[in-house]
Structure formats: C-alpha cells, structure tokens
C-alpha cells in the first residue's frame, strides 16, 4: 500500500521503502487508478511536452492576449536575462518562461493547468529553467513533476486550489509550493527538504488575494506567476541550505485553507477588490464592457 493522505504519511512511506517522494507518488497513482507506471510516466511526459510548447510559443515578441492587457513581456525578460541582469539568469529564465505560459494562456493558446490555468506558468517556469541549467533527462524532469503533483494533491485534499474559494494563495501559492518542492528534488535535496520548501512557499504567500482586473486572467495574474517563480526558488534554496519551516507543511496547508475561507468574497476572483478596483483597472473595465 502506497496510500498517503498527508505529508507525514508521505515521508513515512519514503522511509519505509527507502525511496523518494517521486517514487511513492508514482506507485500511489498506480494503485488508485489501476494504470501501470509506464502509462502514468507517458502521461507526465505528454504534459511536459505541452508545457514546453507553451513556453516556446510564449517567447514570441508579438503575442497579444484576448483582453489586450498583456503580451510580449516574456520576450522582453528573456532578452534582458542575456544581458547583465541584477538577479541570477536562472531566476530570470524561469520567470520569463512563467510569463510565456501565462501569456499563451491569455491568448487562448494551449497550456497545462498546473494546478490551475491562472497559475499555469510557475511550475513549467521552474522545471524548464532547471532542466536546461542542470541538463536533466526527460525521466528526471517527469520525476520532478511527480514531486510537484504530490504536493498539489495534498493541498487539494486538505485546502483548495481554486482562487474563487481560497484567493490567489490557493492558486499561485500552491503552484509555488509545488515548484519549490520539485526544485529541491532536482537539486538532490532530502525528502524532508522538499516538504520544508513547500511549507515555506505557502507561508510566504499566505493571504494573497485573487483580484483579476475586469475578471480576466491577465493582470495581475501573469506577472504574479513570474514573481512567484522567484519566491519558489528562494524557498527551495532556503530548504537546501538546511533551513526548516517552523510550521510543518500539513499545518500550513490547513491554515492556508482557513485563511481562504476567512477572505472576503471581494478578494476571491470576483473582481471586486484589490487590483481590480483601482482607478486604472476600472477605467479599462469600462472600455472593455461599455454596456455594463
């Protein structure tokens, strides 16, 4: 039996089987779906292929979103990263890929929801920047995706992944936690460090509101994906440096869900608070929907 319902059980299984989170996640998925590990690996690789395609498309300089608010930012940051940037280029490539995926999403292109469409840039951003920097094989990248998915599954079970229910902390916060754990795994960190990185990521984004301008998945979503990439990588580095999360992952998930329920509805994807009701946002909303 490879069933796990929380991080504690997940780590115990890893210990019992002398293995890593990716392996447990894969075996557990085999058990619950009745599919073979080859079939599941195939699906993971297909998801990775779609992610990669969306990054490539999104780096095009002339991409425009349906709402007209974003496009071309991935290209700008990607070009800038090659010059003499302030942050480490790894962070900037990851952030530009996150912008790329979210810009493709906003132009009605094909993406993988990870865990949602609005937060679809963070995980591919981190995974593909690291794949290039560390020269990862397809299998290694798929295993990192399994680690991320295991984290997302625990959050979905005990809290929520939906902005309408839990605010942006549930979407971008969860995606950052998933990406942080995957990054630790790629760097060869211990299983406990993966969970610590995920807990730190949730902590840093706790309470983040979902406030889409004109209700569209454009502003602030796209750029928030980019900043959450940096957040995820810093949390991964902290965990790898041996910094533990004072609050364990399971407790962070519970409290993230609780904060989500405490958030006012105006701050949960209804476009009635936060960025969405700034004068600039309201002016744009009136232009887009003159009849309302």
């Amino acid at each position, binding site marked *: 039996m490879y069933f796990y319902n929380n991080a504690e059980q997940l780590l115990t299984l890893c210990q019992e089987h002398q293995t890593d989170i990716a392996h447990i*996640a894969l075996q557990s*998925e085999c058990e*619950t*779906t009745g599919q073979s590990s080859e079939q*599941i690996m195939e*699906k*993971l690789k*297909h*998801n990775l292929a*779609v992610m990669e395609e969306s990054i490539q498309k999104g780096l095009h300089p002339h991409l425009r*979103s*349906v*709402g007209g608010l974003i496009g071309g930012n991935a290209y700008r940051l990607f070009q800038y990263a090659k010059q003499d940037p302030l942050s480490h280029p790894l962070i900037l490539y990851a952030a530009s890929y996150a912008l790329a995926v979210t810009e*493709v*999403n*906003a*132009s*009605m*292109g*094909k*993406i*993988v*929801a*990870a*865990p*949602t*469409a*609005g937060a*679809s840039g963070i*995980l591919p951003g981190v995974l593909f920047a690291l794949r290039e920097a560390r020269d990862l094989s397809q299998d290694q990248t798929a295993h990192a*995706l*399994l680690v*991320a*998915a*295991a984290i*997302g*599954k625990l959050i*979905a*079970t005990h809290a929520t*992944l*939906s902005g*309408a229910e839990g605010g942006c902390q549930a979407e971008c916060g969860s995606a950052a936690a*998933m990406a942080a754990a995957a990054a630790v795994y790629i760097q060869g960190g211990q299983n406990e460090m993966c969970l610590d990185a995920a807990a730190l990521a949730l902590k840093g984004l706790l309470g983040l509101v979902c406030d889409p301008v*004109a*209700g*569209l*998945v*454009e502003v602030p979503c796209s750029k928030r994906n980019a900043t959450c990439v940096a957040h995820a990588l810093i949390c991964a580095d902290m965990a790898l440096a041996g910094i533990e999360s004072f609050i364990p992952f399971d407790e962070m998930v519970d409290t993230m869900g609780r904060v989500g329920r405490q958030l006012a509805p105006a701050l949960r994807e209804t*476009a009635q608070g936060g960025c969405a009701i700034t004068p600039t946002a309201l002016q744009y909303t009136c232009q*887009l*929907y003159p009849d*309302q």
Partner: protein
Amino acid sequence: MTVSLFDVIGPIMVGPSSSHTAGAIRLGNMARKVSGEAIQAVKFYLHGSFARTYRGHGTDRALLGGVLGLAPADERIREAFQLARQQNIEYDFFTIDLGNVHPNTAHIMITRKDGSTCEISGSSIGGGKVVITSINKLPVEFSGNYTTTIVIHQDKPGVIAYTTSVFSHHHINIAFLRVFRQLRGQEASMIIETDEMVDHEVIATLQEYPDIKQILLIEPLP
C-alpha cells in the same frame, strides 16, 4: 474523495480560464451531443459572470467551438467564429438573468437543419467541470463525465426496479442515479450515469416497458 495527480497537473486546455473557457467548451460539446451534428443555427444566453466577462475570457468562442465539436485543448477554439461561418452555422449571443443559478451558467438553443429545435442549460462549476441542469426544458442534473441515460416515465411503482434490472442484466454498473418528479403519479424522470457504455439493445429493452415514455442516451464528454 481521491485526488489523482492529473487533477492537479492538468487538464491540458486552451486558456485563459478553466471555468470560463474549458468548462464553456464542454457545455457546447454537450449541446452538440443532444442536438446531433446537423446544426443550422445556435443561440447562446449567458448568465452571471459568463454574461459580464465572456468577451475577455473568450467564453463566446469557447461555447461556439464546443457546439462545433472542438475539444477543450483544440487551439482552433480561437477561430470558432470563422469556422462557424465556413460551415454556414448562424450564431448569436445574448446576456440574460436566469435568476438564482450558478454564476457561470449558459442556456443554449439549437435549430437543426430540418427545422427542429433543442435546448440545454448548464453551469461551469470550476476546473473545467460542468453540470447540465436542463435538456429540452426537462430539469436534470449530471456531469457529462459518464454515459448518461435519461428515462422519462410515469411515476409508478416498479419503473425504477425494471430499469435498474435491465442495466444489471447487461452488466452495466450504475455510478449515479437520480429521480425527479413534479407531481405524484405524473411524469417523472431518471438520470442514470453508468461506468459502461449503454448500447441500443438496452434502450430497446427499456422502451418495451409501458410506463417508460421516452429515453435519451448521451455519450460522455471528452
């Protein structure tokens, strides 16, 4: 509830929103399953958040693309208006207040090439999931994830037992079963969602029962 890893990593879809785009495509797909492919014209009535934000989310193209038979991951969704014109399918969008229903609700009316009409209502409830709430004015409730059999019958003892025994006889497992009626002894309906496909032999056997008036078989959504 068991969460699959692919509920977290996925679905693969065209953006920008699983509820306003992917779910809308699946509502359109369902309308096509009910109407059949010989479509002349389609009218969409959008309620709530769908009505407020459909242009920026591409909900209009998503619904229309769904009616044209495109899947949630098909990038031709973006060109749905053009595709409809190429196929000589007329389309129109209206905003409407449907009252106390889910904020992402659409009502879809289709006129077939032979002049007959059909209509469905449904809501996009998040993550690309949908709930169909009415078919041809009949109140229903199903997800479209399973083969769905809708039986319209007389509200009498024995009809449900007969129906489930036919399914059992054909080794078809019922995942969900709901029964609706307006008045005791009058017209009622059963919504049966099954793990296995339902073939025409099953339908023919059901039709033999005198208190069963009409049967609608709907294949699962992609």
